[in-house]
């Protein structure tokens, strides 16, 4: 235990020069191989390499949609089709005058971006199958339209693809064009992946509710990603049209989508390098095993099924040796409350959240039935009551997940809107969950950094281009997260995958994540559940210390000892109504509470 605490902060704080190189070495090798490929002087290999690069331009964007955001876009080939026909039709002068091929290619990208967003719209409200089906339906329809719209697409006969003039003329010039675009796409998506936007995407995928509570607005973020992925798909389509030199609707089979998809899944979700390798291998493999060509889609499908059933994490998971190293046994969580002063702003003056006459029904069940509640800064307010008395529901009303039927909710006297859970972070209201909502595949540090998403300044574009503001954001978030982890006593585990931790540690990680908001109010939903007596004691001290820094704490708990130890005021709920309210001493003496709930 002791030696890990001593060494890890240094490791996580400043990565050594050698370590950085180690992480980049595969990229450097890949880049050199790509640059040196023309030396082989084999035009057949050149064509395969062009195809791999083009496919990767599309897959790079798709990787953000599928691998990071977890949206199952199975028909993304439609973006390739759109881009190809747009570029080809404009360059060939089928719509108005003949366009310059480079301009036509850009138009293909714009077209892809527009339709990427349109196809993505259902994903903003619905997940999974509906979105998968929309992309599939769109792919079907685009092909139908391509067949029927003869003036522009040439129908079944097809249309010639564009030929790019100097400097990227057909041959190795065109190869370099594809290679450069693939490299740029990789660079941009890798930047997104490692920025707070990438972490937010993964959070939406694995812990959507927690992402919202951290202030991540899913629709806004997904639209940006669909825009980018659509644009990259469109550009890839334009290049594809040029590579094919003549395109017909048959060239864009749904099976191509499967190739893109499997490349990403084989590589592993939430990785950039893995899907690159996956794309290269899958593109090249059938070329070198000619008898396989006919069966290639079948084999891809078998591969897809095998991955899903056997290694859902992909190759990246299999190769993740770092996280196979055993963790120290018998770890102890020792919060360092003295660090709180730096983690929280000492709130000046008094703030309050006031609930008045809140009522909420689920069908015929009255979950909350006319509740008044006031949470003040600097105090720990306990909320207790038997199961089903409306404690968690109250918390969910405050954090915007439920809209009550009647009642008002005011923050410092001003109305606070119901709904909009993602807007709570901007009021600096943070929360934890009854069952910890953690991104298991991300490291502990990344999980905590998610909590500070709203403090980032850089826009999506700045993050994509890794501009200074984004790098500053990253540095600040990393520092703040290390500090929050140190405060709850888990800094030694910063680099560990979160799903390897034990339950009690997850509870403290949630608190660290909540602290990232520098919350004015902190709502804890049964934070002591599943903790040992010793851990509960430390948790109590931590909560008390947080409130003494000026944060208002709402504590939903079943452990009566913890409640009476640290609360300044207690409200007892029963059947959605207030049964009693007052200081712990008053509650302990309250006859009804004792008989109904506390017993003894």
């Amino acid at each position, binding site marked *: 235990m002791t030696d890990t605490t001593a060494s890890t902060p240094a490791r996580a704080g400043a990565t050594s020069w050698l370590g950085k190189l180690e992480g980049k070495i595969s990229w450097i090798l890949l880049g050199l191989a790509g640059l040196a490929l023309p030396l082989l002087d084999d035009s057949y290999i050149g064509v395969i390499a062009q195809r791999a690069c083009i496919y990767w331009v599309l897959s790079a964007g798709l990787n953000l949609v599928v691998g990071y955001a977890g949206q199952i876009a199975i028909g993304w080939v439609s973006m390739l089709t759109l881009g190809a026909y747009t570029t080809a039709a404009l360059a060939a002068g089928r719509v108005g005058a003949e366009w310059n091929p480079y301009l036509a290619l850009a138009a293909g990208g714009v077209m892809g971006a527009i339709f990427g967003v349109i196809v993505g719209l259902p994903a903003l409200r619905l997940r999974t199958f*509906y979105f998968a089906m929309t992309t599939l339906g769109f792919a079907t329809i685009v092909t139908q339209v391509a067949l029927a719209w003869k003036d522009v697409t040439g129908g079944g006969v097809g249309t010639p693809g564009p030929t790019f003039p100097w400097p990227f003329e057909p041959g190795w010039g065109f190869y370099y064009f594809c290679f450069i675009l693939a490299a740029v796409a990789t660079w941009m998506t890798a930047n997104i992946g490692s920025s707070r936007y990438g972490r937010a995407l993964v959070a939406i995928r694995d812990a959507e509710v927690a992402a919202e509570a951290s202030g991540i607005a899913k629709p806004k973020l997904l639209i940006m990603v669909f825009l980018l992925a659509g644009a990259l798909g469109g550009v890839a389509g334009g290049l594809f049209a040029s590579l094919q030199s003549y395109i017909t609707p048959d060239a864009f089979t749904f099976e191509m989508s499967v190739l893109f998809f499997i490349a990403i899944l084989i590589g592993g979700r939430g990785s950039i390098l893995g899907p690159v390798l996956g794309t290269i291998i899958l593109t090249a493999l059938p070329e070198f095993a000619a008898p396989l060509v006919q069966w290639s889609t*079948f084999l891809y499908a*078998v591969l897809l099924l095998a991955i899903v059933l056997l290694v859902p994490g992909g190759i990246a998971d299999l190769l993740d040796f770092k996280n196979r190293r055993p963790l120290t046994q018998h770890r102890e969580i020792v919060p360092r409350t003295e660090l709180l002063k730096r983690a929280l702003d000492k709130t000046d003056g008094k703030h309050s959240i006031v609930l008045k006459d809140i009522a909420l029904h689920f069908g015929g069940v009255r979950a909350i039935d006319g509740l008044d509640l006031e949470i003040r800064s600097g105090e720990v307010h306990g909320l207790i009551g038997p199961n089903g008395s409306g404690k968690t529901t109250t918390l969910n009303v405050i954090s915007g997940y439920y809209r009550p039927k009647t009642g008002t909710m005011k923050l410092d006297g001003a109305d606070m809107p119901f709904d909009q859970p993602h807007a709570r972070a901007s009021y600096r209201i943070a929360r934890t969950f009854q069952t910890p909502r953690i991104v298991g595949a991300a490291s502990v540090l990344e999980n905590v950094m998610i909590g500070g998403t709203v403090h980032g300044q850089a826009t999506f574009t700045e993050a994509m281009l890794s501009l200074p503001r984004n790098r500053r954001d990253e540095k600040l978030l990393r520092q703040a997260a290390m500090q929050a982890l140190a405060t709850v006593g888990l800094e030694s585990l910063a680099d560990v995958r979160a799903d390897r931790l034990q339950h009690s540690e997850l509870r403290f990680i949630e608190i660290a994540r909540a602290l990232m908001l520098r919350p004015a109010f902190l709502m804890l939903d049964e934070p002591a559940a599943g903790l040992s007596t010793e851990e509960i004691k430390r948790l109590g001290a931590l909560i008390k210390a947080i409130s003494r820094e000026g944060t208002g704490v709402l504590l939903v708990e079943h452990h009566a000892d913890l409640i009476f130890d640290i609360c300044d005021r207690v409200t007892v709920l029963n059947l959605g109504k207030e049964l009693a309210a007052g200081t712990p001493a008053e509650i302990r003496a309250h006859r009804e509470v004792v008989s109904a709930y506390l017993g003894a």
Partner: protein
Amino acid sequence: MFASIISYGLAVGAVYALIGITYNVMFSASRVFSFTAGMLGMLGGVLGALFIKDWGINAVLGFVAVLACGAVLGLVTEILTVRPVLKNIEQHLYVLSTLAFALMIQQVTAIEYGTEAYPFPVLIPIDANSILAIVDQKFWLPVLACIVTIVGLEFLYRRTLIGRAFLAIAEDSYAARALGLPETRLRMASYALAGVIGTLAGFTGAQMLLAFIGNQPILNFYGFVPVALGGMGSNRGAVIGGLALGLFQQAANFLVGGIFAAVAVFAVFIVVLLLRPEGLAGASAARRV
């Protein structure tokens, strides 16, 4: 023209409705949307043409054999692609596993049978002067199949014990298991049933849609649209939505051309999903936190 819009539209709509019901039967049993629905529809046509036209099997026997193949494929779907991923259903891996399986079957069909659209044999020899010949059998066969399926399912669900057990699983599989219902076996039965309904749709519609491998993605999508619009799990919604979709598509085809029809259906699909994610007739979803 009006008559052909109606007859063609209702017939195609009935096929869509049956594929929608196929989705529903699998969904009710497992909360899984399976991409195998369109595959079953496609196979109904291809296998029917293969058995009856190419191998010269008697039409009735061929029909039974096609449905039996559907049932077997339904069972394989359940065992191979659904059961292993049910434990973590919130990860929605079934989307990929069922898609992979459907693609495997599609590819085998493409290689072994061919990618062209082949004609489907006339099933029932009807005298040109008979009353039945007023409307071509390729139009009334799918409608008849749709009616038989609905009546049959209604009878199964309302009047038989096993049907009630299906409903119990659909309502709350956890509670149903606690009551001692054999959930796994009922789920397998549901998938076999879905296999039968899916191939029935393809078989009866094949004189119109042909024995064509390209029907798979088309049926997958257009069979899903009525389910999405009518609310998942609702067979009534699937039938009404399916017939409406078929009529709308054919009317648009005849009046303004195919591009518009395809684009309009897609636009309606997206708009409804955005405005009413639970479908026009569905109930809203449960709590998240």
